């Protein structure tokens, strides 16, 4: 084990005993079941949805279509284009045209095939490059174009700079659709309450977003919907829009029938309908000098947004900001497009626009190094961002520790990279096994940046006996968010964690803190908890200072006690809280954390895009069998900046899980779409990493407390998932001597002893 101290999280015991109740484990009196109805179409104008036969089936209570919606059938976090029930057109094969509601789930499923849909088939738009051309038919007529967004970076004069470069490399890269593959498919229960409020329990990672979708579909105000949180089986960015839409449909069924309704997805429905990671086509041109200095980059990215916008403009914005990787490049001309097609919707997935860009950039720098006759590490070190460097969007990196070189050096030392690099096969080996070691580095803007509002809140409510109720507007996706909040609170107040109960928040008792994505849970929610604790401490210090014979500024909080000046006097925490109540003062506080100001000029692509950054490096050793093409991973190492590791075993878990997911992305994960229809809709066909696909891993946590973060902590969820694909690509090159520019990396078996 990596850690001597046992791990702790507040929800581990319920999870290892099966006592934890996830959404589909809940039952309510008189509960109905709802299931979705899809069509065979990919792109079609809907003429009629006829549910009359289905309505007559045993147990069927009702069949709901777009015409039954009391509110607005369309919603979206950025563009309101998402049809929660498709009424006008089928825009992708996962569009739902009706919901069958029945006494049992089996009865509902049995009636689905009796819902008949008449539609006029339209030519599907499946290629984003085609969809961008003038005159292409429009996926959304109202949008006026299939281009969802166009982000830019304009820095220096790339055209001019290329002419002066000693070397220019041009290369195209392609990445694939990727399924989040959270183990728990989408599920929601909606319960109509006697007071008219619709209560929601669901597997989601953004209760407040879910509430907006539900309220919009029902045509009610936000206060008329209460979204409650329950344990959920993984999100990875994937439980926002689709999960919310599922909850909204369950809510509509509950509203119409007046009974609780559960809507639990089969895996096949989940894969068919839920949004995916964007496939990118990246055309990259990089210019550099003989001395290995990067001078210019010209980049064009086309991201397939699928049928609805979801958060495509935000995902592609991160790609834009981070388009050159963690390097100082004086001349940059970057254009990133998100484009509507009739493919499956794409949206947020762990990494959020960075895994694709890193796959390109981190291979290109090694190609450039080779061209200069320089080691990959030397080339990187000549160009990498350091303390005080300016990013390609004009942001000066100061105010936090720029630990990129530290991450690189510690990873390479732990992996033994310098000793092992010389042993790489480059296509030539004695036996069949070709050996390679490779790595990649990145930087990543923390939290949402200029995407939008970025703040969070927390409530600390201390009871008469000193026990504490804590809540924060972050969601437990499985990552250990609740435990992190408890530990930050415990550390600030000097009260044992066992005295703190995390109150699973509901949208009815804490302000909207935004979504638990963007690796922002610990930094933003933890910031709010730390600020709430500090405000509580200042109140307590003022009230209790007289009893401790000192000035309020001298009061300290540690070891379960409140201490006077120089520890001369002390009060036990429970006694102190008792005193507060006797003074008729509540030991209660509300804290917020607002992200420091960021700036962005969409016209030039310049600005202080994120309020702070993290840095990382991952390395991998592998062999490629020259006969079979099979890749075997031998060892994976990661170093990432965490600011402050609030809960070390959970931070390590993010590292290991992120590396594993990155390895799957590199080697085999691929949503196969033919003519707009997904072929591999379950885990027997869509392969995610099994334990035996993975090697032993080493995780190195770098801690430089960040002054911009009240708790000192930063996020690690996504950085750990954005580097393994380029690291594997570089290692595969060092093994085989052949570069791979497409994900997943497929190595065809070769006969005759040539390079695989």
């Amino acid at each position, binding site marked *: *084990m*990596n*850690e001597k101290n*046992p*791990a*702790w*999280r507040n*929800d*581990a*015991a*319920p*999870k*290892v*005993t*099966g*006592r*934890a*109740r*996830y959404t*589909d*484990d809940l039952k309510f009196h008189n509960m109905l079941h709802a299931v979705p109805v899809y069509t065979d179409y990919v792109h079609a104008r809907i003429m009629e949805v006829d549910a009359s036969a289905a309505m007559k089936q045993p147990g069927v209570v009702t069949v709901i279509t777009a015409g039954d919606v009391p509110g607005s059938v369309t919603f979206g976090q950025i563009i309101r284009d998402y049809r929660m029930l498709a009424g006008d057109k089928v825009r992708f094969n996962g569009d739902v045209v009706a919901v069958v509601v029945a006494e049992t789930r089996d009865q509902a499923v049995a009636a689905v095939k009796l819902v008949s849909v008449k539609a006029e088939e339209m030519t599907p738009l499946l290629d984003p490059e085609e969809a961008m051309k003038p005159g292409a038919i429009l996926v959304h007529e109202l949008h006026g174009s299939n281009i969802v967004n166009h982000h830019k970076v304009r820095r220096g004069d790339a055209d001019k700079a290329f002419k002066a470069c000693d070397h220019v490399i041009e290369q195209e890269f392609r990445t694939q659709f990727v399924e*989040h*593959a*959270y*183990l*728990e*498919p989408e599920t929601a229960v909606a319960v109509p309450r006697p007071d008219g409020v619709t209560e929601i329990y669901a597997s989601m990672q953004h209760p407040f977003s879910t509430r907006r979708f539900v309220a919009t579909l029902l045509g009610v105000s936000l206060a008329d919907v209460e979204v409650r949180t329950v*344990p*959920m*089986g*993984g999100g*990875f960015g994937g439980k926002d829009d689709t999960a919310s839409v599922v909850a909204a449909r369950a809510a509509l069924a509950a509203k119409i029938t007046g009974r609780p309704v559960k809507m639990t997805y*089969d*895996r096949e429905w989940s894969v068919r309908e839920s949004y995916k990671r964007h496939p990118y086509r990246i055309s990259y041109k990089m210019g550099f000098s003989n001395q290995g200095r990067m001078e210019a980059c010209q980049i064009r990215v086309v991201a397939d947004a699928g049928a609805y916008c979801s958060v495509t403009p935000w995902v592609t914005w991160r790609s834009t900001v981070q388009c050159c990787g963690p390097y100082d490049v004086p001349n940059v001309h970057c254009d990133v497009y998100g484009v509507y097609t009739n493919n499956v919707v794409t949206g947020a997935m762990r990494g959020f626009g960075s895994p694709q860009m890193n796959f390109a950039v981190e291979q290109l720098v090694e190609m450039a190094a080779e061209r200069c006759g320089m080691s990959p590490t030397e080339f990187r070190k000549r160009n990498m961002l350091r303390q005080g460097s300016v990013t390609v969007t004009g942001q000066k990196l100061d105010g936090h520790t720029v630990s990129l070189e530290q991450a690189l050096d510690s990873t390479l030392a732990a992996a033994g990279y310098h000793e092992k690099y010389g042993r790489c096969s480059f296509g030539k080996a004695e036996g069949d096994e070709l050996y390679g070691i490779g790595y990649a580095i990145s930087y990543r803007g923390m939290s949402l940046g200029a995407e939008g509002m970025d703040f969070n809140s927390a409530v600390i409510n201390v009871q008469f006996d000193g026990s504490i109720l804590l809540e924060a507007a972050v969601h437990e*996706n*499985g*990552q*250990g968010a609740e435990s992190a909040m408890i530990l930050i609170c415990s550390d600030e107040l000097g009260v044992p964690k066992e005295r703190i109960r995390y109150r699973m928040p509901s949208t009815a008792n804490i302000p909207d803190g935004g979504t638990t994505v963007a690796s922002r849970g610990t930094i933003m929610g933890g910031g709010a908890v730390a600020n709430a604790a500090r405000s509580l401490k200042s109140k307590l210090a003022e009230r209790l200072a007289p009893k401790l014979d000192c000035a309020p500024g001298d009061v300290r909080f540690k070891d379960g006690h409140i201490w006077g000046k120089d520890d001369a006097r002390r009060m036990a925490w429970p006694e102190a809280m008792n005193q507060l109540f006797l003074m008729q003062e509540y030991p209660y506080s509300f804290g917020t954390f607002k992200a420091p100001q960021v700036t962005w000029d969409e016209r030039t692509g310049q600005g202080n895009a994120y309020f702070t950054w993290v840095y990382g490096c991952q390395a991998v050793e592998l062999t490629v069998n020259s006969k079979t093409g099979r890749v075997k991973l031998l060892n994976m190492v990661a170093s990432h900046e965490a600011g402050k590791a609030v809960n070390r*075993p*959970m931070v*390590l*878990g993010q590292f*290991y*899980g*992120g*590396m*594993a*997911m990155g390895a799957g992305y590199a080697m085999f994960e691929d949503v196969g779409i033919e003519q707009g229809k997904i072929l591999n809709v*379950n*885990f*027997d066909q869509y392969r*995610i*990493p*099994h*334990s*035996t696909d*993975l090697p*032993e*891993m080493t995780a190195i946590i770098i801690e430089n407390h960040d002054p911009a973060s009240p708790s000192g902590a930063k996020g690690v969820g996504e950085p750990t998932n954005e580097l393994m694909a380029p690291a594997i690509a570089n290692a595969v090159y060092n093994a085989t001597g052949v570069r791979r520019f497409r994900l997943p990396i497929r190595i065809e078996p070769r006969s005759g002893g040539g390079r695989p």
Partner: protein
Amino acid sequence: MITYINGRRHELNVSDLPKNLLAFLREELDLTGAKKGCGVGACGACTVLVNNRPVRSCRKTVADIVDRNVLTIEGLARGDGSLHPLQQAFVDAGAVQCGFCTPGMVLTAHAFLLANNNPTREEARKAISGNLCRCTGYQQIIDAIEAAASHYR
């Protein structure tokens, strides 16, 4: 007809026999620790032990447990409610994140350790290869199995 579930005797009706085992456990006995992740026997979230061997309950029927001993995750903790050493090892190793795979993973590991109480990490890795976990990368799960092994000796 009878079956034993978590040590308790259950009478079965003929009409129960064709029922899906996972649905029977979850819906009729309220043993919701076994989860439905895929429904095709590919993910292992529905794993329960039948005569101490892991089975995919989503691919079995009640007929498959007649006269057998079934152990679900709810039956592993001690009678007084305290954690089984393997469960404690999962907690201590940080092997739990979202927890959806955890019941199946713990039971698969339990069956494995009953048969091999001094495994190498590689053997532990192979033993859980049929149980998918998307959160952990399996590393801390293998740590937990390694740490718990001594309790099976």
